[in-house]
């Protein structure tokens, strides 16, 4: 049984996702041990512009066709700045058919693996695993499940998920593609809070339909919940490949910060501008690790 990790990254004029994905792969290699390969799934233009960088960081490159439609969203960078930028997130639904592995773990490039907990997915009896619960590490929200809408279904986070080549996943991803192709209809049907295309919504709707249109108990990943740092937070410093000091926006006043150390635990850092600001230090840190 081949075991592979796939990171998705498509560059936009505003964000260098390929570089972030390279860093993400360094974190995975430093903390997880039981996989065979790390692959990047990227579009042709990103690959062409970053060929040597990508080839040096990944065992395999899966090139996807350029997306014809562009998604635009607002990216916050703490409370003080925000930018409206492109977001190429349409290829995730094809990861099942493009994955060459028997078992695949899909990870977003802004998810920093700082523990070996996700190594526990390999050899699971579950065909598909994904989480709906999340924790806000800034402490502004308690552990909870977000909903596609207050009156509809729970939202699963497509940030990290695991699948096995199986009949169940074959059906699931066929349904996911169908929902993606008819997104406006399903978005209206499920009363999605935002009109913007979100993989989280597509996966949640597909899982709900596949369970016979009733609330479901989708197998969860070995991590109890997704550890989220939302885009109001900032990064203070990466100490090592398993420790970061964050500046968490306060609950009472989001323009003020509390410092918090996160170590030996995975973290999903949603403030991409903050990651980009620390790219130089991150590169130094990962090079040091490799040469050591």
């Amino acid at each position, binding site marked *: 049984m081949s075991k592979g990790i796939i990171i998705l990254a498509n560059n936009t004029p505003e964000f260098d996702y390929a570089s972030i994905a390279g860093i993400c792969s360094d974190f995975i290699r430093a903390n997880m041990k039981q996989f065979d390969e790390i692959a990047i799934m990227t579009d042709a233009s990103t690959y062409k512009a970053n060929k040597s960088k990508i080839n040096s960081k990944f065992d395999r490159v899966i090139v996807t066709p350029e997306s014809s439609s562009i998604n635009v969203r607002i990216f916050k960078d703490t409370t003080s700045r925000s930018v409206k930028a492109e977001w190429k997130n349409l290829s995730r639904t094809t990861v099942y058919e493009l994955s060459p592995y028997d078992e695949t773990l899909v990870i977003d490039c802004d998810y920093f693996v700082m*523990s070996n907990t996700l190594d526990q997915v390999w050899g699971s009896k*579950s065909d598909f695993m994904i989480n709906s619960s999340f924790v806000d590490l*800034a402490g502004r929200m308690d552990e909870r499940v977000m909903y596609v809408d207050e009156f509809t279904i729970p939202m699963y986070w497509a940030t990290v998920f695991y699948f096995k080549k199986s009949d169940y996943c074959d059906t699931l991803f066929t349904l996911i593609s169908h929902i993606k192709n008819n997104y406006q209809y399903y978005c209206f049907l499920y009363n999605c809070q935002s009109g913007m295309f979100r993989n989280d919504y597509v996966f949640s709707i597909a899982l709900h339909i596949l369970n016979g249109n009733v609330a479901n108990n989708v197998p*969860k990943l070995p991590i*109890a919940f997704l550890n989220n740092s939302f885009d109001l937070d900032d990064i203070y410093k990466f100490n090592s490949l398993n420790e970061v000091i964050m500046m968490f926006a306060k609950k009472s006043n989001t323009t003020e910060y*509390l*410092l918090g150390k*996160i170590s030996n635990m995975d973290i999903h850092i949603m403030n991409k501008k903050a990651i980009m600001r620390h790219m130089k230090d991150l590169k130094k840190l990962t090079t040091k690790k490799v040469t050591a």
Partner: protein
Amino acid sequence: MSKEIDKSVDAERLAKALHFSNTMQTFNLAKNNLKVKTQTLLSYSAYGGTFVISQEFIGFLNAVKSAGKKQAVILDKNETPIKIEDVADFLDNVLSVYFEVVNEYNNDYQKLKSSRKIEKILDIIV
């Protein structure tokens, strides 16, 4: 004159209280994130199942072992039935992960409790 002195003393006390409040918020956040980390790490996967390690789970496994069962089918965290081929070995592994994680929690917590300054809590060199 004495009223003015009182006022400055009050302002000083207030500043101290606010500074302390900030330290406490940082302390509580750190404590909470240690709990989150412990919860995340208290997980063990074997025989294709994933199990949440708790004191109750350890007690249950011990009861299975004490009943003389060498093999048993138990439910994992996703309610999937999993056949445990060697209950004694499985319990040993679960106990080992439990103590490893909880001892780390204890070390981090003691360090946090004895720190009075934010820089010390976070190991930041200023």
